[in-house]
């Protein structure tokens, strides 16, 4: 792989930034750079990752304050140029608050913060983030969130579905999108969506925490691999 620079945004309260840095750095030719929320400089990033955590202590609403940090203006411009942006967990929450993705993430219907291994199904493998997976492949990725319950208006859900913007859905290990597998109550079992153009992805599960066998799963690796391959055009 040719040289790729991946910017990882650090907000006060981000706590998966270094896990993401570690996962990204494990790919040959890929260099992670940490981007402080208060800067304006994307430091030549070819792709941006908004990591998990509790930016600004989840004050007001998850992701709502981070959305207005100086660096996010640059990230929104970057995304507007069709360049890739990935939001994981709190990063997904920041993306919906910023309007780069549609809908909102509410408190889990079961009230609890859920930290466990989850299974999700790849329902669209023709994105730059997922073309390393098979269609309908079931992935084991950990989740850790209190507000992962995806909601949107009926019209928004219809347009997401019509444009194949739903990329991941919670399912059981056999790929059945059951009510039981949908532990946070998301509409349509939605675990991850892209924007209309397909260059912005947000998902609640943590691919960086499933990037080597020692962690119990390496199903998250191919998400990064797909992305980096597209960035280099190889």
């Amino acid at each position, binding site marked *: 792989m040719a040289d790729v620079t991946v910017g990882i945004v650090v907000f006060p309260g981000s706590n998966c930034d270094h896990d993401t840095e570690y996962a990204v750095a494990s790919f040959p030719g890929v260099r992670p750079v940490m981007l402080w929320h208060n800067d304006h400089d994307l430091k030549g990033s070819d792709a941006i990752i908004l990591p998990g955590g509790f930016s600004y202590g989840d004050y007001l609403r998850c992701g709502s304050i981070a959305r207005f940090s100086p660096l996010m203006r640059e990230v929104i411009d970057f995304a507007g140029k069709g360049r890739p942006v990935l939001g994981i967990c709190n990063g997904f929450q920041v993306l*919906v608050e910023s309007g780069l993705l549609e809908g909102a993430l*509410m408190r889990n219907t079961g*009230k609890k913060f859920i930290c466990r291994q989850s299974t999700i199904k790849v329902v669209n493998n023709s994105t730059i983030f997922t073309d390393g997976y098979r269609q309908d492949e079931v992935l084991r990725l950990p989740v850790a969130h209190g507000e992962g319950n995806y909601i949107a208006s009926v019209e928004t859900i219809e347009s997401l579905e019509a444009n194949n913007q739903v990329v991941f859905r919670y399912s059981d290990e056999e790929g059945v999108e059951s009510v039981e597998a949908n532990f946070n109550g998301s509409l349509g079992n939605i675990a991850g969506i892209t924007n209309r153009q397909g260059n912005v992805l947000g998902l609640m599960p943590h691919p960086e925490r499933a990037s080597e066998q020692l962690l119990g799963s390496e199903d998250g690796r191919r998400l990064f691999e797909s992305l980096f391959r597209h960035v280099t055009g190889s």
Partner: protein
Amino acid sequence: MAYKAKIKVTLRPSILDVQGKAAQHALANLGYSSVESVRIGKYMEVTIEESSAAEAERVCIEISQKLLSNPVMEDFTFELEPVN
């Protein structure tokens, strides 16, 4: 001229309020069986320095839409009064 905006942000009626539901269950456990439902929202007091009430109102609506509420899941109402 300073104005105080009292802004209330509530979850839209169609949105399940798990926090409110938990509080309602706790109240039921305390013996308040007549409490049928609880919805939890946010109350904010914002002081705005503007030349007129109309300007203060414009700012109040703008900040409520932009940051203080999320129109996907929340509604807001406000009262505005001059501060002496």
